[in-house]
């Protein structure tokens, strides 16, 4: 098994986060 991207229960440690509608696109606030 190879971890490509580590997951977390801690939302501040994962991402990107942001307004991303339409799905698959990115808008103004993407971290």
């Amino acid at each position, binding site marked *: 098994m190879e*971890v490509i991207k580590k997951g977390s229960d801690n939302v501040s440690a994962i991402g990107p*986060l942001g307004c991303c509608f339409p799905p698959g696109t990115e808008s103004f606030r993407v971290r």
Partner: protein
Amino acid sequence: MKLSRFNLWVENYPEQEKHLLFNTRTQALIKVDQELKENLEQLSGPKFNENLNALKENGIIVNNEEEEKLKLKDFFRQLKYESDKLTFETTILTTFSCNFKCSYCFEESVREKIFMDKDTSDLVIQWLINRAEKRKLKKIYLIYYGGEPLLNIRPIYDISWHMQDWARKSGVDFGFGIITNGSLVYPDLIDKFLSVGLKEVRVTIDGDREAHNKNRPFSDGQPSFDLIINNIKCIIDKVKVAVAGNFDRENFSSLPRLLDYLDKIGLLYKLDYFVFAPIVPRLGPKENPSAIELSHCLSFLEKDGLFNEVLSIKRELLKRKLKLRTSGLAINACPLTMQDAGVTIDPKGLIYKCNSLLGYPEFSVGDVHNEEFNQRHDKFLNIDAWDKCPADCPYVPMCQGGCRLFSYLENKNFSDLSCKRDYFDRITPELIKLEYDKLVKQA
């Protein structure tokens, strides 16, 4: 023990008998071989036991349904109330006025010759500092936007100067970016802004010369493409410049031609990143905001919509080894329902939590004269649309029950579901592949 209901498989990728497994809640992406896949289906076997701790840490395996429900609830609690740990991003509109007449402008019905005055920009500074001190914010990033923000540069300099000064004294990270049509940027201006915290200029170009000039002419109809390109050339060695582009079916095919042209003139690999997104519908006129305009743009969600175009332009960027800011596999964090998510301040000082609501005061959540938000803020904050989602939907953490603006456009209220599950079914496997390729190639 059970498999998380938020796991998504992409089988036989990147090769036969290798599989990608993505968890929409923890955002973990793992690659497993055939034996582990079979072990996972049985929840037993040597490879399962060998990797059990890592599978639990990444949320692929949970103890039971109840635990997963609690984790989902906690996920949304964090998203709503702990966004102060993120950068506080504030968009400031220095004016609603613009020297362009873009065919799809989402501020079309509210475009007026209103400029942010000195009194208002002073209040913006005070409001931001009060907010930052009260919420103990550690990172502040401003984005100047419009209309065309560079039609009113004084507030950009004033607000940034004061915020940079305060941030230095307070140990807070500070920076700002400008989203501009690119017609008014010049080197001396960039020097001036660099001294007060400028980090990035984002210029909108909607395709090659012909397509861009059709979509984004000056107000008097004159073409803007060549001037913008020349302006970028003049500032590219001073500051990071990104290119954003909006597309529909008509101009999509011109985007690769834009990349070709930028390459030919030596700009392509000097640019920081590219963001291309479909044009979206907008609220109706001021007196009737629920009357959707550009409703044909909702077609990206239909079966033959812009799904393939969204993916193919990202693939095109990867192929050319250009920086892809995200694959698109992201968590929808709607600022309307987040306590300390960024805000947008209009030229009059009204505060909004979604750019698409700009110009409709009935949807503002406060103004810079008052430190506290109004009741509308709390109404938005208390929306938990995800709570109405079907229990078997694996996309809930990524989708939150959908875009609140779309809910308004579709349901005439902000709180109902705007479910796009069919669309997620089609696009998510491709986004997982893209995310894998991006991470592996950029590693």
